[in-house]
């Protein structure tokens, strides 16, 4: 394999000959600072304040919510208290919700990836009018608001919906899928498919025909071409699609609210219940941080793959 790494030339480096940052690098830093500051102030700072509230710091910015909320644990050490964390871990609902959330996320992401790969590979290897129509149809959910899709799926699979009505004519008692985890999976796959297809199909289109044809000339079967050439070369878009899809499904709210059971439900709905209906903001924050920790784990995989691909292409 020819190495694609290019040698770093002295002209491209950002250090001056005498050492220390050059004026160019300072200007670059100053230009990238405003968006970084905005993210730090409007996203990072509230997360930090929320973390302190979950640990029982009820003064300063947390004073108001501590007055309004119920079952607030105030700190009893210098580092805070684990009272709220204990409440959540010992709550009979939490582990059921966590299990359902992880199960739905893994299953939905897998199904989304399989479907997106199938459609994108069909378009790449065979192409033609049918493939174009298939891809266009699968992008349609992107333009439908999630609430509308949730309600439409509810009507379609409900007790008197199309599926049950259709199968009754053949004497089959089709199950009512609403208020079950299956309906959540159907809903999340439906809404996450467009983004995954866009990413993966564009990644596959970027692979030159020459590679596929030369592999076929060497006698590779279609499966070998897919497994050894197409998927490895489209690895980055596939990982991007997988991480964004799974993080999105992890925190989803509307689909599980309308299509899922009341308990166990997904953590997005439970966090909203605890914050709003049960007026327990501290415990809802604890659950939010647990979801955040899981999402961070997925994000680490994404960043690692990005760094790897940047190194391979010589940008890093």
């Amino acid at each position, binding site marked *: 394999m020819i190495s694609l790494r290019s040698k770093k030339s002295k002209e491209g480096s950002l250090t001056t000959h005498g050492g220390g940052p050059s004026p*160019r690098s300072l*200007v670059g830093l100053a230009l990238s600072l405003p968006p970084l500051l905005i993210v730090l102030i409007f996203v990072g700072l509230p997360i930090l304040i929320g973390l302190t509230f979950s640990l029982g710091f009820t003064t300063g910015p947390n*004073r*108001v*919510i501590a*007055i*309004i909320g*119920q079952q607030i644990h105030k700190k009893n050490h210098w580092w805070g208290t684990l009272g709220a964390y204990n409440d959540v871990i010992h*709550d*009979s*609902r939490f582990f059921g919700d966590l299990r359902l959330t992880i199960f739905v996320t893994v299953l939905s992401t897998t199904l989304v990836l399989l479907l997106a790969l199938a459609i994108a590979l069909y378009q790449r290897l065979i192409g033609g009018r049918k493939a174009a129509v298939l891809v266009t149809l699968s992008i349609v959910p992107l333009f439908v608001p999630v609430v509308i899709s949730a309600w439409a799926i509810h009507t379609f699979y*409900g*007790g*008197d919906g199309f599926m049950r009505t259709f199968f009754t004519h053949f004497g089959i008692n089709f199950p*009512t899928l609403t*208020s*079950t985890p299956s309906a959540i999976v159907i809903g999340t796959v439906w809404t996450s498919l467009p983004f995954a297809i866009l990413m993966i199909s564009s990644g596959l289109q970027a692979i030159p025909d020459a590679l596929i044809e030369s592999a076929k000339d060497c006698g590779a079967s279609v499966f070998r071409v897919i497994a050894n050439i197409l998927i490895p070369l489209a690895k980055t878009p596939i990982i991007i699609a997988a991480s964004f899809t799974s993080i999105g499904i992890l925190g989803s709210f509307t689909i599980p*609210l*309308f299509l899922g*059971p*009341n*308990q*166990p439900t997904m953590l997005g709905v439970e966090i909203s*219940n*605890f*914050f*709003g*209906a*049960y*007026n*327990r903001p501290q415990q809802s924050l604890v659950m939010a941080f647990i979801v955040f920790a899981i999402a961070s784990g997925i994000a680490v995989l994404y960043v690692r793959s990005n760094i790897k691909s940047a190194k391979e292409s010589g940008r890093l």
Partner: protein
Amino acid sequence: MFKKSMKKPLALFAAASLAVIGLTVPASHAASSTIQVYISADTNIQDLWVKTLVPAFKLAYPGYDVNVTFDLHGDHDAQETAKITAAAVLHKDPGVDLIDGGFTTTLGAAGLLYRPTPGLMPNINDLNKTVLAAGKGGIPYRASSVLLAYNSTNVTTPPATLDDLLAWIKAHPGKFTYNAPNGGGSGYSFVQTVIDKYLSDADRKTLVVQAAPELQTKWAQGLETLRQLNKYTYGQNGTYPANNAETLKDLATGLVDMGTVWSDQFSSALKAGTMPANIKVTAIKNPSLTGGASYLGIPNSSVNKVGARLLANWVLSPAAQNLIVSGTLNGFPVIPLNKLDPVATAAFKGVDILNLRAGYLSANANDLKSKWASTVPGK
């Protein structure tokens, strides 16, 4: 990278934009003849205030102006609660003088509402004392009750008491539903009513007026009854509709023959044609389904308490209450029927308005919603 000639105008532009942002600080509260009203509810309440109450108030008190801010479905309730609490803590103007919204009871429980006295607001003498006390500063101005809706084609004689209803549910599996209490008040009312079946009158009253965590152990029996209903309610698998609207839809499409609904939402649906005419409502007894008063609140830190008191007192007058009863809202009044227009109140002949069973204090209600979710659905 930037030419030297660009740096000066760029810096000037940045400074100018910051100055403009700084100067657009909202103007301070106008003279005391303007009353700021904040409404967090559905569109029918917005119409009630904007089209009916405010014009009538301005006719009665021409020196006053009323400015209405509307928030649909309470989307910003949490933010508004926090804003008013912060203003109270910092002794600043909260920007609102009178609130009509579900979160008034939360503000009252936190001690942030002005407590009305008959001296300054004489019309509160006409109110039900228990309902007034439960507001903790909130002033009840209209009510609606939860009622039992039934399909009159399939159900010829609806149940008259709670025990009859529970027996009917078991005799007709899959034909009754109520929504999850954390999603809507109509389902919450059914849950609280079943719980109240096993509580004494004294205990019920305590739970309405003060936070009572020690009484919550007595909820166990009611929760067990509800859990046993899981195999008889719609779906027969311990799943319940998410909110009020879904229960109304299930009734209208004939999926269920009976369900609990808010009286005003039901009347509005009938008028709009989304509820077929063969669905009727009835009240049950022993205990009856709870009613909800809607509370007005005057924040302690409001800068125009005089105007807010005047408006709130006027809303409790027979003139305003007649408007609430007779308009499209079909709301229940909160003052005795004999003070009102007999034609408008003919529809309420059978309903005991002043003895509507109150819902629990918000702290207890939130605890009940949480306990229901952990002991009933899916078990």
